[in-house]
């Protein structure tokens, strides 16, 4: 009990130092621009199909599931607006972030973990290259930027999915659907929801890097790093989401 408590504190301390180091290295030149762009491409572009499919299904399913309830009140005309609101405010950010935790965070954890275990990170260090800057800063920045973009993409595709869902039963023109969506959206719905996605992205990258960078020696720790990256990142997403909702509630 005492030991696990002590380990917990040590871990928390190490994680804090890791974050502090991120901000220190972030501002110090030289900047690894090329690697950053490469990571953006890998994380953003390569995740598009997955995010598109899940986004479309989210919109479609949400529409189909909500229709009976709204129909009971004779409020079917609210359907496009309601689906768009729930997608943009909550469902698209959280689901997309969870998918990114599964795909990107675990990928980073496994990649850096295996580099750590096979001494590639040490090799960088002894050749006078700062591995933290090259590996961690670029990846964390890339996720911080790419996850919000993926979320916006998922929002759009999800709303299209909603259009498909509505047209299963009724016949609504594209123009009418989108004008209903847009009229129900307010600026204030979009801003807090977008801000929180930057935090999702930041923590997805950071947790993956931290788990990989601190992997113990031995090949089995690569799997552990990847696994624990997904679990921790998913949990972090829910916690951030809860805090974001509370804060939005308070200020808007």
């Amino acid at each position, binding site marked *: 009990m005492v030991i696990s408590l002590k380990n917990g504190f040590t871990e928390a301390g190490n994680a804090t130092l890791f974050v502090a180091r991120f901000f220190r290295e972030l501002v110090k030149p030289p900047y690894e621009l090329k690697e950053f762009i490469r990571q953006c491409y890998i994380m953003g572009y390569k995740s598009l199909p997955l995010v598109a499919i899940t986004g479309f299904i989210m919109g479609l399913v949400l529409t189909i599931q909500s229709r009976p309830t709204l129909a009971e009140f004779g409020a079917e005309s609210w359907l496009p607006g309601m689906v768009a609101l729930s997608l943009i405010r909550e469902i698209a950010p959280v689901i997309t972030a969870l998918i990114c935790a599964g795909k990107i965070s675990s990928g980073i954890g496994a990649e850096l973990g295996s*580099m750590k275990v096979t001494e*590639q990170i*040490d*090799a960088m260090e*002894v050749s*006078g*290259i*700062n591995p933290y800057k090259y590996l961690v800063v670029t990846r964390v920045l890339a996720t911080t930027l790419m996850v919000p973009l993926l979320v916006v993409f998922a929002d759009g595709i999800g709303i299209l999915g909603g259009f498909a869902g509505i047209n299963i039963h009724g016949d609504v023109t594209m123009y009418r659907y989108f004008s209903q969506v847009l009229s129900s959206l307010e600026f204030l719905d979009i801003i807090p929801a977008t801000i929180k996605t930057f935090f999702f992205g930041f923590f997805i990258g950071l947790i993956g890097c931290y788990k990989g960078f601190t992997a113990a020696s031995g090949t089995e720790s690569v799997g552990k790093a990847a696994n624990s990256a997904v679990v921790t990142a998913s949990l972090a997403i829910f916690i951030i989401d809860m805090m974001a909702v509370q804060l939005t509630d308070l200020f808007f």
Partner: protein
Amino acid sequence: MIQVETNRKTQHVVELSKPVINIKGLYKSFGKNTDILKGVDLTVRKGENLVVLGKSGSGKSVLIKCLVGLVSADKGELNVFGIDMTKLSDQQLNAIRVRIGFLFQNSALYDSMTVRENLSFPLKRHSKKLTTKEVESSITEVLESVGLREAIDKMPSELSGGMRKRIGLARTLILQPEIILYDEPTTGLDTITSREISELILKIQEKYKTTSIIITHDMACAKLTGDRLVILKDGIMVAEGTYASLERSNDAWVRSFFI
């Protein structure tokens, strides 16, 4: 200048007046794994090939990792090029690390990069002014030094163990280090390849005039490359001398290495 007894055919001249590496009373322990190093003293002179012997787990790798600051020592003096390695800022440390090559026990090639990228990665970061052509010619030169020019566009996963060792060596050579630390350069290779690597170490040593520490279990490699041998046991250096003198040591344990 004093000639040192050597096994090398070339009779390389070692200047006894110029120690490049100076270690005094080095201690290191890892948590529960206490006392890996318990007061290691070691001096390596310019141009010398020093072989470190010792049982598996005796802390040989830890010793050279302390030397480049990969592992921080608990206590003791660490001097490289006359500079105290324990009191350096990150920037100063990196400047010294560029002058020290490190060949890892398992090569540690960057898996996600081709051989060409593995070699250009450190070079481009340290000499920003180089043109693409100059980078390319440096890459070709070191690959020729290790005899693997044809591997330039391969991925590390496509290389055999011996080839990986050579590429690892090429990657350390590309920064033209003054010191090279070899961690078991021949382990896991057949006798013929081992001999080739040992000869390569000698060739490189002559061509680039490097100072080397060679950790090995391979006595053929030790005999061929070593000017001087030391043995690490229970955290301290227990024996020192040329191959010939240690082979005839009074201590049966020391002699047991040479069977």
